[in-house]
């Protein structure tokens, strides 16, 4: 399995963050994303960074693992920074290195943009690291519930999500299995021209699609056989309840928000 795929990479655990109501986590993340865009001073960024890093530590997921999962976005973060540094030229020249002028304003802008990016990715990845996909969908269904009055198919959407999430690891396993089988029959996925590599994908994709369709059909049949008739009147096996720790987290987060807004310039 691809270890750098952190999205959907749930690490079971027993930390406070793990035990929070998934709705709490989603709401906090939602507002955190908004608040990040309000930050504009050293202090406000400092507070948010401390909050995000502190939360990451509190999950007790090994930091090396969190960092590894961010690997694909490191590139983007650094790229954003460099782009700002070299392309936009605003403010005073701070210093000149090897004949290349560094502008103060671009340095700051590049830095803050990369930091924002980093904070967003880090914080949202904490959700998927500490919350099982099922909990996430339950929470989304609960949070979107009011939309039902507008005839928005909340239940169906949640069901689709949870089924997709459930089958991602299965599909990845299947893909690995089939690619190994085809590699044994002489397919080379790694070397050769682009065209060769494209055509090497076909023996992988077709069996994968075939089995995914078969699986979907079997699942639908099994669900109907067990009396599934849609969301109407269906009860929940896991009821979501806010506990004291959730209220505490909301309160704490509110203070962070207030502090961030307060230290804006």
């Amino acid at each position: 399995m691809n270890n750098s795929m952190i999205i959907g990479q749930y690490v079971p655990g027993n930390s406070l963050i793990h035990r929070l109501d998934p709705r709490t986590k989603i709401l906090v993340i939602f507002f955190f994303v908004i608040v990040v865009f309000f930050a504009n001073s050293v202090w406000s960024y400092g507070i948010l960074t401390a909050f995000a890093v502190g939360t990451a530590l509190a999950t007790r997921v090994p930091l090396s693992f969190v960092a590894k999962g961010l690997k694909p976005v490191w590139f983007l973060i650094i790229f954003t920074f460099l782009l700002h540094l070299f392309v936009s030229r605003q403010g005073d020249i701070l210093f000149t290195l090897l004949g290349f002028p560094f502008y103060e304003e671009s340095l700051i802008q590049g830095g803050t943009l990369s930091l924002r990016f980093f904070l967003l990715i880090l914080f949202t990845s904490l959700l998927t690291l500490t919350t099982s996909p099922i909990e996430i969908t339950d929470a989304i269904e609960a949070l979107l519930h009011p939309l039902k009055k507008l005839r928005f198919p909340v239940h169906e959407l949640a069901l689709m999500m949870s089924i997709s999430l459930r089958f991602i690891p299965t599909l990845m396993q299947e893909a690995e299995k089939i690619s190994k089988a085809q590699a044994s029959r002489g397919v080379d996925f790694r070397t050769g021209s682009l065209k060769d590599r494209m055509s090497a994908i076909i023996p992988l994709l077709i069996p994968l699609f075939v089995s995914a369709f078969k699986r979907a059909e079997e699942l639908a049949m099994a669900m109907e056989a067990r009396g599934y008739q849609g969301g109407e009147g269906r009860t929940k096996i896991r009821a979501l309840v806010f506990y004291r720790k959730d209220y505490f987290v909301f309160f704490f987060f509110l203070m962070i928000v207030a502090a961030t807004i307060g230290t804006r310039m």
Partner: protein
Amino acid sequence: MELTFNEVTFIYSPGTPFEFKALEDLSMHVPSGSYTAVIGHTGSGKSTLIQHVNALLQPTEGSVQVGDFVMEAGKKNKNLRSLREKTGIVFQYPEHQLFEETVEKDIAFGPKNFGVEQKEIEERVTNALEAVQLTEDVREKSPFDLSGGQMRRVAIAGVLAMKPKVLVLDEPTAGLDPRGQKEMMEMFYTLHEREGLTTVLVTHSMEDALTYADDVVILNDGKKFMEGKPLEVFKRKEELKQVQLDVPEVLEFLEKVEKRTGISINYEKQPIAELAKELAFRLERRDDYE
């Protein structure tokens, strides 16, 4: 070609919370031309083990030698292609790997990848179809229109058409009807004898191990638990029980006969009918004597 595992340890996803040691310090030797059965409880590491044979997995520690190819921990493998051409692996549920429009094309896929000439490929397809007992009329059909058992045979034909020297079978008969299972195991044995293959069979069936294998290796929790000739290994009933394995029914039956009647019959792979005859004969003689 002979296979040698030298103190192989394999770890899945090392350095993550999902780290899992699937093989530990495992050494074994499979002589050229022999038939070895690998047995173990589910999750004991059998499939992980066999994926080292054609370098789909590389040992985390230790080394694996297949003929002249040596795969060592931490070293890049060269010549993967020629290794893979010589080692055919039939995976668990191999029918999942079918993808071509016709049975013929799917069987030809392996040889084609290894650069076999068109004329020779056609010959190999014909032979492979015959070996797996499929008739010529499926040749032009889509593999997805066949029954599950037929699909399995097509997939196996696709591996046989590579003309491997080492044949690795990962529970090749799982999910087939009893008669299909027997036919298929016989087919592999005939091939093994005729082509002088080195065969490794992963199986849950003690009967198959007893009937076909020269050597048996028993895995438990990624470690080698026992190895030896089938009859010797299956004598150690109590130890096998510890790892949730049974002994073959025939042996179990003969042991019970001995306990009840005192008649001991040596099992030398006689057919059931012959055993029954001998037992009847000895019982009669005993009754006469009394």
